[in-house]
């Protein structure tokens, strides 16, 4: 089929029927040439239907795989259909699609571009143990990627051709794998990582957690994910290993 653009916008969506259509429309508004793929991550509501009516192409997973699994579908789709770049956007409206061109501009000199929440724009803040966790994560991952990263768990990111090829095969599916381990994979595979400031909007539903026990658990899982990401054998990330 003819492709009007080489950029694919991937939106993982799990039970987002309330917001997904609006986000898809916003994406088209600020990126008229974009192809939007909504990956319905096993939703029990009308996410797929609503997204399709809004003009997105929709891949529906038979059951919930988490953001990592949904994104792997997106990367696979990009490789199969000849897209050069993939931009991941949350379907809850948290990410402002107006920043997509800014992310894509950076792709000219980088393989993976993160849209960072704390880099000056917008009014998003976290405190306490969760903040410490994010700070130490940022410090470690900045060293690994040889660039200054402040928001490593941001789900707003753009991947260039090299990253798309790598992630189509090796995007991690575990919890926190899609954010933390993906960065380690990129760093260990020699990809150039950059960060640009983007403004975030308050989430349509739910509030960021400030429960200390949950934050501690988050810290532990993040540390575990990070440790194992660095410990994995290099052969894990070789290209062309799996079909």
């Amino acid at each position: 089929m003819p492709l009007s653009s080489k950029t694919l916008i991937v939106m993982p969506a799990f039970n987002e029927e309330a917001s997904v259509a609006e986000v898809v429309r916003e994406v088209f508004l600020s990126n008229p040439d974009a192809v939007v793929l909504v990956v319905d991550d096993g939703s029990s509501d009308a996410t797929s239907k609503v997204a399709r009516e809004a003009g997105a192409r929709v891949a529906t997973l038979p059951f919930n795989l988490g953001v990592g699994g949904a994104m792997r579908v997106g990367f696979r789709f990009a490789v199969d259909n000849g897209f050069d770049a993939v931009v991941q956007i949350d379907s809850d409206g948290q990410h402002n699609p107006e920043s997509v061109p800014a992310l894509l501009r950076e792709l000219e000199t980088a393989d993976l571009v993160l849209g960072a929440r704390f880099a000056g724009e917008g009014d998003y803040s976290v405190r306490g143990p969760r903040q410490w966790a994010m700070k130490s994560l940022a410090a470690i991952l900045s060293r690994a990627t040889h660039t200054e990263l402040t928001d490593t768990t941001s789900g707003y990111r753009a991947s260039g051709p090299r990253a798309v090829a790598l992630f189509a095969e090796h995007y991690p599916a575990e919890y926190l794998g899609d954010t933390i381990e993906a960065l380690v994979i990129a760093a260990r595979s020699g990809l150039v990582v950059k960060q640009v400031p983007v403004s975030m909007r308050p989430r349509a539903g739910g509030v960021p957690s400030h429960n200390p026990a949950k934050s501690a658990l988050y810290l532990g899982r993040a540390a575990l994910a990070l440790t194992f990401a660095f410990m994995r054998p290099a052969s894990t990330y070789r290209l062309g290993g799996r079909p």
Partner: protein
Amino acid sequence: MTFTSYLFGILSAALILVVVVELLRRRHLRERHAVWWFVAGVIALIVGVFPATLEWAADAVGVEVPTNLVFFSGIAVLFLVCLQHSSELTQLESKTRTLAERVALLELRLNELDDSETPRADGR
């Protein structure tokens, strides 16, 4: 040791082996999963028939009470089998995940092919 307990030991070991072989025969158990159970059954049978081998083995590894060697080996086998199962479960999950991803992409392609054919109103 009474003759009854001697017989009980041998029969238990034989029962394990019969069950494992029968499951293998009916393809309810794959060889690579059966190996541990088979080895455990054979060792249990040997020890059941010749209790002296247990005392010799316990002495060889420095275990004072031979029964403790039985407990140790039993727990070790169960532990290893459990670990093997966890590992295979992980591999199965990863395969299921890949299948789900492929299915989603195939379904998307199929739907779009269907949609592109629908406007053809020439009756075919």
